[in-house]
């Protein structure tokens, strides 16, 4: 048996190598990344296929902005979706193309119709200075505030910190959820909860006005609502080939603009 081990290993190596060499032949645009960008990316891909039937095929995975950035830097996908702006520690050689803008809403449970919050109130609540709904005017419930935020790696968290929190830090006792959907679910099931989600995830929740402006598409488009961040498609090097065509189409065509405008803020 001993003498046959190398042979066995060779057979094994062959078995591993064969599936790897059967790569795809048709042009595929693969995307991964932000859970906030994913719904928009899916709609855009569908629209692109309608405009250019059978030109490419799409593969869309999620995972979070940082996953998208890491995947595209490593060459695992053609486009990485990111809902956060580029930062210093990102891998080099990436090109960021802005595709849309998106509103982040401060949301509470439907039974707790907080009408509006000032920036100072948002900061006090999320940093843990104010911990009881009694101290928040307009709250429909009493008792401790359950703060729900996103994990550090989330693009939404990054944007929330920059736009709403400024220099104050999110309380360390806040529950950190891994996706927009989980935050929305936590708020829906807990009357005392408050959190922030991308505009596309606010169904069934109460969106609080921020600085007196309601969180909706119209106010985000007009620029009155301040809690707006960028959506990016990231490529390794300048976009080329099918990716270039797709990103150009998103940025320039009317059809893409119409699709984007259904739930997000188009660029132009």
């Amino acid at each position, binding site marked *: *048996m001993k003498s*046959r*081990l190398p*042979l*066995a*290993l060779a*057979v*094994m190596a062959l*078995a*591993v190598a064969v599936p790897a060499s059967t790569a795809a032949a048709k042009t595929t645009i693969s995307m991964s990344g932000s859970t906030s960008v994913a719904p928009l990316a899916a709609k855009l891909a569908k629209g692109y296929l309608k405009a250019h039937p059978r030109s490419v095929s799409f593969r869309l995975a999620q*995972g*979070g*902005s*940082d*996953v998208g*950035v*890491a995947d595209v*830097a490593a060459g695992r996908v053609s486009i990485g979706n990111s809902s956060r702006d580029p930062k*210093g*520690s990102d*891998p080099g050689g990436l090109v960021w193309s802005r595709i849309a803008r998106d509103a982040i809403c401060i949301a509470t449970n439907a039974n707790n119709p907080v009408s509006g919050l000032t920036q100072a109130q948002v900061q006090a609540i999320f940093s843990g200075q104010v*911990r*009881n709904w009694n101290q928040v005017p307009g709250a429909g419930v*009493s*008792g*401790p505030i*359950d*703060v729900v935020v996103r*994990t*550090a*790696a*989330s693009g939404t968290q990054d944007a929330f910190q920059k736009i709403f929190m400024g220099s104050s830090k999110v309380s*360390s*006792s*806040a*529950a*950190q*959820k*891994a996706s927009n959907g*989980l935050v929305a*679910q*936590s708020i829906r*099931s*807990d*009357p*005392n*909860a408050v959190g922030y989600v991308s505009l596309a995830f606010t169904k069934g929740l109460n969106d609080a006005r921020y600085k007196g402006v309601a969180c909706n598409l119209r106010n985000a488009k007009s620029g009155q609502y301040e809690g707006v961040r960028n959506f990016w498609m990231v490529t390794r090097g300048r976009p080329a080939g099918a990716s270039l065509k797709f990103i150009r189409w998103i940025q320039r065509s009317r059809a893409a603009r119409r699709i984007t405008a259904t739930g997000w803020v188009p660029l132009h």
Partner: protein
Amino acid sequence: MARPASPATGPHRSDKRAELLLGALASVVLVLIAGMVVFVLAKAWPSFSHNGLAWFGSGGNVDTQLIDIFNSPANPDKYEYTFHAWPLLYATALVTLGAVIVGLTFALFAAIFIVEFAPNRLRAVLEPVVRLLAAVPSVIYGLIGILVLVPFVGNHLISQGRKESVAYVVQLSGNSLAVAVVILTVMITPIMIALIVDALRTVPRSWTEGAHALGANRWRVVWTIAVRAARPAIVGACVLATARALGEAIMLSMVSGSVGFAPNPLDGLTFFVEPVRPLAATIVDNAEGLSVKPLGQTLYAFAAVLLISSLFLSLGAWLVRQPMKRYGVRP
């Protein structure tokens, strides 16, 4: 090769071929496991070497530390690594031990009932159902937890006063140790039942019949002969269940609390509704940040701890089983 094919060499050669193929498959498994251990440890090394033994200790807030690691500067010399994993290790131990102890109690009696006491008709339904339950994907349990159990505990079992009493330390929203243990128990118990049932069945009939002949009643025979003989298999069932519980990530990430908090047993009943976040769930929750090198290395350190503890688990179970084997059966 030039030998003429004869009826005698035909089957012999195909035997050899099968041996080669199976040997190759077995070596794939070995190489994969060895490669995985080396890979994970190599990836995790910077996190361990920066913190030393303090990595396993307590100090500071784990979530703040994770955020600081995530926000490390781009310069590799200035990467942030400071991390004290105690609350996560403690949470992993609490949730796993809690579920295995409760689960074992249930599983043992359920298995005894199925094998010795259940009427045939009931047994014919019970057994397939148990085996089916053992195969339910964990994310389904997670969904039930997050949609039903967590809101129920948060809105009906935890009083406002209890929430307010700890509001400055921790949020009690229903995501809790108790919910995590309950769902994990439901997840691992069917496997344990199935394994213990198999073991009890393999106890030689002559042993139990001998005991009956000596005048022992049914319960006594089961407890002193069958269960005793099945002990090695029961330990094996516990090990498998513990391994599943240790590695369970998705469900725990959904229900257990999303905050690295170490529940304090001195808090009385509040202890059970305090949030926890075990190691595997922390990996899932922070997987988004894998691209940030120091955070990735810290997550690999969690993986290394889980991997090594499951290795020690198998070793420990082997040691425990040795003295039991003398009068034991193995399915």
